[in-house]
């Protein structure tokens, strides 16, 4: 990479403040300090704690116990189970949230005034706390007082039907958790897609229309390719967000039935904070961090997002 000095063919100094064009490192200090203090330091502490025996007592500092926690974590069947649940939740999040957010986002990008009202309503979940949403859904899926009970009355269903025990078996419980994430998180991704779709230059559609492309052709040949970077951004947010999802599981299922909805972050809470084994919990936390970083790195590489290519070259 050529330096700024050689970039100027005549080697003359430019006027104005020295270094004004290119901020010095000092400018980034606030961000760096913030990041170091709230991300890197806690991360380092978690790594340290994962090699200790610590019960969270201020008067009894952590005691180094080498690889004890790590050996236990790596042979713990509940860790494997939790990774499985985590992956299932991520897959469900991507499979349900991407198409929904994409379609609604592109639709909402249109200029009609009515859409703005509908979209404003659709974004309401973004304003609500996920804890409140979960408590609400917890009442809704209650088999005796919630929606299942009403459905049973309306359609005269038998006492035991597909809706009567939603939190009682693993797959329907995972389904409910995924649905709440879909309901709560898809507005955010819709917003991202809406922004992305609005940035697509109108001339592309005009040119396509002249060439005789219909709505579907325009969507698949112009909108989708133009939204590639939006897609990558939104999906990475989605995947990493689901990786660390915890609140809904804590409030709705407590990881049950039979650990059926215990994902890695909930397992970390359960074994670390709740069972007061901070060393063990920290080891799980480190696994979460490593896996989440690996997944997002792979996604960035595979999609070519790191090459910083624009989608509008030549427009």
């Amino acid at each position, binding site marked *: 990479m050529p330096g700024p000095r050689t970039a100027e063919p005549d080697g003359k100094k430019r006027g104005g403040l020295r270094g004004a064009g290119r901020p010095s490192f000092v400018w980034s200090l606030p961000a760096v300090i913030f990041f170091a203090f709230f991300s890197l330091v806690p991360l380092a502490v978690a790594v340290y704690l994962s090699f200790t025996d610590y019960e969270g007592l201020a008067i009894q500092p952590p005691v180094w116990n080498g690889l004890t926690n790590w050996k236990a974590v790596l042979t713990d069947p509940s860790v494997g189970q939790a990774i499985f649940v985590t992956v299932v939740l991520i897959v469900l999040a991507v499979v349900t949230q991407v198409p929904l957010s994409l379609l609604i986002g592109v639709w909402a990008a249109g200029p009609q005034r009515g859409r703005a009202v509908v979209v404003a309503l659709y974004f309401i979940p973004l304003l609500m706390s996920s804890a409140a949403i979960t408590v609400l859904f917890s009442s809704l899926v209650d088999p005796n007082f919630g929606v299942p009970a009403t459905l049973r009355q309306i359609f005269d269903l038998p006492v035991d039907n597909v809706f009567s025990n939603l939190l009682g078996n693993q797959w329907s419980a995972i389904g409910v958790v995924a649905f709440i994430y879909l309901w709560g998180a898809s507005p955010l991704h819709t917003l991202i897609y809406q922004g992305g779709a609005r940035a697509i230059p109108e001339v592309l559609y005009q040119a396509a229309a002249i060439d005789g492309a219909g709505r579907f052709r325009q969507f698949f040949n112009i909108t989708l390719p133009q939204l590639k970077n939006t897609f990558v951004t939104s999906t990475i947010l989605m995947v990493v967000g689901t990786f660390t999802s915890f609140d809904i599981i804590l409030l709705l299922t407590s990881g*049950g039935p039979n650990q059926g909805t215990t994902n890695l972050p909930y397992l970390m809470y359960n074994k670390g904070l709740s069972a007061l084994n901070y060393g063990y919990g920290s080891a799980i936390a480190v696994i979460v961090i490593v896996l989440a970083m690996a997944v997002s790195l792979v996604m960035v590489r595979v999609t070519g997002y790191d090459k910083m290519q624009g989608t509008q070259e030549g427009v």
Partner: protein
Amino acid sequence: MKNNSIKRVLGVGVSIAVAATLAACSSGGGTTSNSLAGWKPDNSRATNQIHVLVLGDAAASAEKAAAARFNKTSKVKVVIDTGSTAGTEYNNTVRSQLGTKTGPDIFMSWGASGINPLVKAGGLLPLDDFIKADPKLKSSFLPSVFNGEVISGKSYGIPMRGVAPEFLYYNKSVLDTAGLTPPKTWDDLLSDVSTLKAQNVIPIALAGADQWPGQIWLQYLYTREIGNAQVAKGLAGDSSVWTSAGSKKALADLTTLIKAGGFGSNFDSVKYGSDGSAALLGTGKAAFELMGSWEYATISQDKSNIGWTAFPSLNGGAGAAGEINGNLSNYYNVAANTRYPNTVRDFLKQLYGTPFLQDQIALGNTPPTTDAATLIDADTKLDPQTKTHLDFVVQLVKDAPSFQLSWDQTIPAAQQNASHAASAAFFDNQNVDQFISAQQSTTAASN
């Protein structure tokens, strides 16, 4: 100029860090000359105040009122710090603050297993010297409750808040409609279940989604089949208790009830609370619920429909009649590094004072004191139904030959989740061997 201001910011940061380190060091030391056993005063603590960390739920109002009364006459003031409303978070706060100079002087606990690690680390003040100075700090309370926080012969906690035994609640009109009376024996209960099922009522409400409610059924069947003395041995780590014939009999009894459809078919989706299992009982969609005495306050429907009775007796079981399970009480504990132990002692006297106990009764709690029955009868503000309920609780505890603290409170705190999960799994699969080995592993650490 810019560089200077950055340096200044950094300088402030560094000096804060240095100050914090110094403070941390200075709090480690302390005077050794003192009159109280186990007292490690920290003279860098705030002057003329003691801090009480209270669990931040509605029941804390009685504690706040006690502090206000106390502060009227005391030079050293009691400061109430309101902690989390949830037990887990509250405990984590206590653990991370205890022993520091800003930590609480007084905080609340749930029984011996919770404070054991704190005692081992030397963080708690034994209260025996307080009791010597004022014997009422011990003699005012029911011995079975007070002994809940006696560890290796030393007393660490003074009971406060309510005694909460567990027993069987029922919906009167549901039983009336079905032509039933409250069950006296286990066989009565089983036959009630089949009658109620025929009436399309869920016989027994169970909040399976919360895992712990199912454990109460296991507790009581073990109490009836093998007796509380054996249960206590098992919880203390004697693994042979769980493999004994009585243990298998208890599990077989529960299996019979589950397989008979006693809990309905969707208890795993039901949560505990005023809109969950308690509402099933309150609205008459279910006939029974086995729950702690807090159930009465939890039910939000018409309470005149709610009745209660002791857990049924069981023919051929080795347990003595009337043995009970439940939560003994909560306790106030004292940090070893308190600066004003005399103030702490005097404030603890509030816990057996009539105004505090009256406040507890008004909250619906049964005070853990020997004079609870008298106070309840003397109370003119209570409605008759609530009074009957409180009287029942007092009588049940008084008549009980033994009172076993809930399993999840008896075993080490680290095993609590695993213990809940094991109980919940038994309700799902009735796998005797799996339950026994889980029970052995959650209690093994007690050794």
